[in-house]
């Protein structure tokens, strides 16, 4: 895992949370949209909060796709869930909202789940069960496994060693 990859995962978390909250704030300003008055949708996009929210969600999508190009789906998804935790903390400390005990429990569960995944490898493949142990103590799946997986897929991407850049 390079520093840049951690930045991408942070981007997935932050952009999702910020985009969703901007969108929901903007949509509450514009009011509800009925299926018979779809021009309301166009007006909604003109709302600055909605527009910024859409841009943030596009940024989320770009970083999500970026992360999926080098990590498992089951590795990236918990990172997106950390956005819920972020939103709750923002609500507590920036907006001074009350957070119920159940919600604190939810925050603890999500954080625990993310901790479980973050401690393991980012990329796994069943075709290569023997991920070299100890070769990558920093928690990456092992460039060797990655390369082998690429080779099995027909080596669209040329082989490289992640270690070299980190």
């Amino acid at each position: 895992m390079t520093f840049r990859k951690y930045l991408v995962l942070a981007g997935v978390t932050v952009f999702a949370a910020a985009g969703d909250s901007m969108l929901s704030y903007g949509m509450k300003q514009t009011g509800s949209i009925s299926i018979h008055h779809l021009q309301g949708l166009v007006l909604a996009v003109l709302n600055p909060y909605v527009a910024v929210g859409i841009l943030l969600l596009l940024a989320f999508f770009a970083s999500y796709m970026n992360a999926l190009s080098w990590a498992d789906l089951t590795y990236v998804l918990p990172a997106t869930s950390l956005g819920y935790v972020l939103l709750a903390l923002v609500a507590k400390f920036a907006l001074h909202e009350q957070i119920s005990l159940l919600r604190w429990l939810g925050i603890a569960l999500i954080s625990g789940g993310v901790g479980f995944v973050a401690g393991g490898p980012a990329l796994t493949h069943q075709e290569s069960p023997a991920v070299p142990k100890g070769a990558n103590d920093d928690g990456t799946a092992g460039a060797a496994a990655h390369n082998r997986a690429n080779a099995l897929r027909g080596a669209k991407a040329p082989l490289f060693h992640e270690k070299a850049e980190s």
Partner: protein
Amino acid sequence: MRHVYTWIGILIVVFFSVVGDVLMARAMKQVGDVHELWRRSGLWSVVGRVLTNSNFFLGVTAMAVAFFSLLFALSWGDVSLVAPAAASLTFIGNAFAAKIFLHEKVDRRRWIAAVLVAAGVALLAG
């Protein structure tokens, strides 16, 4: 009867979310490590590879269907049930789908994580 419709709506949302996520993950694995690709052949090569990948378009389509079915499900059932139920079941469904279709090694660590996150999301959004 209303409950049945609500849960059918939730399951439809979960189904298309999972399909979208799995197709997107497969598309990006076919594209390859974006950082490496970008450094070697530039941004446009990355964009080109993504836009010529059919799994990418199928995935986006499935995600769009999931989004609109969420809107419909929200009009059938309560937000406080539909949103957290769909979000947390999607996590569980993705763990199964990633194991079956993407051949990811979903070990005990990741199962625990999926269950914890699903429960946490349900509590937070509920």
